[in-house]
């Protein structure tokens, strides 16, 4: 037994030694930008949590933000919008990221967390949602398929079941569509992407899409898959599939050009940005400083792509702790700045915030503690 104890102690000691030797952390050196090591800026630990759609963008922002605030340690947990807001409302995180704006009761609840005033949300991340498909002879040839909102709605409602259905074929005179069955692929988890996609269908094709709005997929057509990654891998596994996903994840799959006004618009970050610029800000929300975008899904603006998800950051105007207030203000300022938006855009393929919205956000930031 004594020998055993010695072995154990030695093992424990070596394990601890190993761990401390690794304590050098292994941080990478920021790419490109030479770290301005002397410009310290903020210091402290700040945590955020929320939408998984913002994960890549937020990681890019954290990299950019800490490059100039070297003493700040920022973490982001992509736990999901609902969980992120719930955690934020307990006061455990400095900010929350969410695919949807706060509800009235959540604004009310935030009084307990914020030192004064109520929490507010500002758009930080605009992601075009692509209608993605995999069809032998079409998508692998790099061709887009044209569809209007009614056609998309009918496909996703199981009313159109073949790719060579006349209603698709007549919008695509240049392509010979095969007689392949359509397999619809949708999200199986609750998600903001689904919510925004069905919002578009409901707004642009109200006669063909009669379901209530929901973050869950409302019908049982086709197949469900977990997360954007699940949707993309399901679509790429079979011929004749169609689904919706974050634009940046599309890869080699084909995308549908959506009819806006009289033209078919290819998906692009600029087109998504144009649609947001043509949208209005909801002035009737309860609570101060909030910037909630009412996406105009029926836009007819030039080169505007109407299926867009707007994702928000949620912060308090004033926190119990002044360092956190300072952090939240600096963070939002950086995130919506031209630099922040272009970092996100190159990291994730998101669309930059249009200027009219940035102006509104800056007003809100100026009102912070």
């Amino acid at each position: 037994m004594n020998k055993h104890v010695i072995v154990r102690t030695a093992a424990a000691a070596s394990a601890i030694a190993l761990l401390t030797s690794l304590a050098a952390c292994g941080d990478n050196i920021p790419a490109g930008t030479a770290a301005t090591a002397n410009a310290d800026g903020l210091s402290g630990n700040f945590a955020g949590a929320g939408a998984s759609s913002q994960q890549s963008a937020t990681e890019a922002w954290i990299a950019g933000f800490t490059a100039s605030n070297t003493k700040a340690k920022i973490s982001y947990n992509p736990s999901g919008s609902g969980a992120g807001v719930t955690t934020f409302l307990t006061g455990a995180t400095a900010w929350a990221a969410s695919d949807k704006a706060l509800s009235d009761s959540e604004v009310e609840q935030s009084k307990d967390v914020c030192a004064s005033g109520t929490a507010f949300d500002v758009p930080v991340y605009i992601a075009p949602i692509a209608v993605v498909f995999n069809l032998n002879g079409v998508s692998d040839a790099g061709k887009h398929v044209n569809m209007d909102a009614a056609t998309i709605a009918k496909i996703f409602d199981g009313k159109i079941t073949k790719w060579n259905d006349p209603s698709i074929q007549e919008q695509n005179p240049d392509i010979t569509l095969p007689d392949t069955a359509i397999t619809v692929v949708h999200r199986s988890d609750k998600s903001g992407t689904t919510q925004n996609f069905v919002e578009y269908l409901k707004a642009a094709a109200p006669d063909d899409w009669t379901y209530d709005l929901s973050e869950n997929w409302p019908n049982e057509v086709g197949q469900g898959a977990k997360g954007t990654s699940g949707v993309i891998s399901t679509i790429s596994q079979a011929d004749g599939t169609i689904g919706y996903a974050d634009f940046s994840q599309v890869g080699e799959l084909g995308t549908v050009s959506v009819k806006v006004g009289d033209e078919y618009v290819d998906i692009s970050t600029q087109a998504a940005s144009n649609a947001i610029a043509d949208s209005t800000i909801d002035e009737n929300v309860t609570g101060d400083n909030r910037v909630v975008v009412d996406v105009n899904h029926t836009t007819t603006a030039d080169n505007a792509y109407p299926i867009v998800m707007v994702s928000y950051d949620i912060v308090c105007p004033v926190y119990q702790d002044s360092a956190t207030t300072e952090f939240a203000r600096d963070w939002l300022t950086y995130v919506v700045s031209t630099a922040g938006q272009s970092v996100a855009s190159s990291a994730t393929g998101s669309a930059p915030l249009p200027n009219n919205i940035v102006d509104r956000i800056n007003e809100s930031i100026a009102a912070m503690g």
Partner: protein
Amino acid sequence: MSTTSTGPSTGPTSTLTKPVSGKQVDKVFRAIAYACGILILVVLGAVALFLLFRAWPLIGGDQSAVSETISSFTGGKATNFWAYVGPLLFGTVLVAALALAIAFFVAIGIALFISHYAPKKLAAALSYVVDLLAAIPSVIYGLWGGLVLVPAIYPFWNWVATYLGWIPIFAGPAANPSRTVATVAVVLAIMILPIITSITRDIFLQTPRLQEEAALALGATKWEMVKLAVLPFGKSGVISASMLGLGRALGETMAVLMILSPGLKYSFRLLQASQDQTIAANIAAQYPEANELGVSVLIGTGLVLFVITFLVNFLARKITEKKAVK
């Protein structure tokens, strides 16, 4: 691994260094053992109470808000809790039972192969591999299942649906990609296979050599020896191993989440997509975006799963006890 003997080793060192009477230490040791036994009761009680506490808004809260939440989870297909949890429960039990049915005999076969058929050296290597496979995380099974197995198994399911489609559970057309209950059951079976095999093999290896040799001396063939000596000896171990496997299959989250195309039906159509969903995967799919009340609903479904595991294990125990009495 060095911590394995932490519990017992606290005793002997003190007896060696101090002239304490053995009875004193005996009592302390006994008390610790009892405390650990009772701790199980306490922990389980805490889990059950806590789940009930968090799920309470379902019963005591605003009923219209509850039905609104459930309706938002299901796209209006269900408005009360039981209509929601029913199909989930059905799916959970169906998937787990299928997985166990596939894995059970194969696992016993492998365990016998390792313990009694394979050459000694090969057996040692194999049991090492089996232990290792038991540790492959479910998220890797999920990755592999979703990216490799789903496209690879479609031709087989298509064949099954074409030629055995007259059996209702195999009714076609087989979904392509085959993100179906059948595929998930296969993945879960592969997943619980090493667990069941590992425990079963250990038990089979403990079969008294005298009994084996007695059987052989009576002229039994190898298989008769296995049937007469090894299997009866290992029966309770095999059942408890299967229960462990079933437990893991019932609660498996990531692999189901990453592979299955879920639906909310009471459906036996194993080869079609969007038919059933399991409770655990449903919690994982809905939790991140759920609000307070939504989380309560999900925890309520978790509580139901908890009760079902209780019942399944209770029944299994009763069955083994009855057999033992015979």
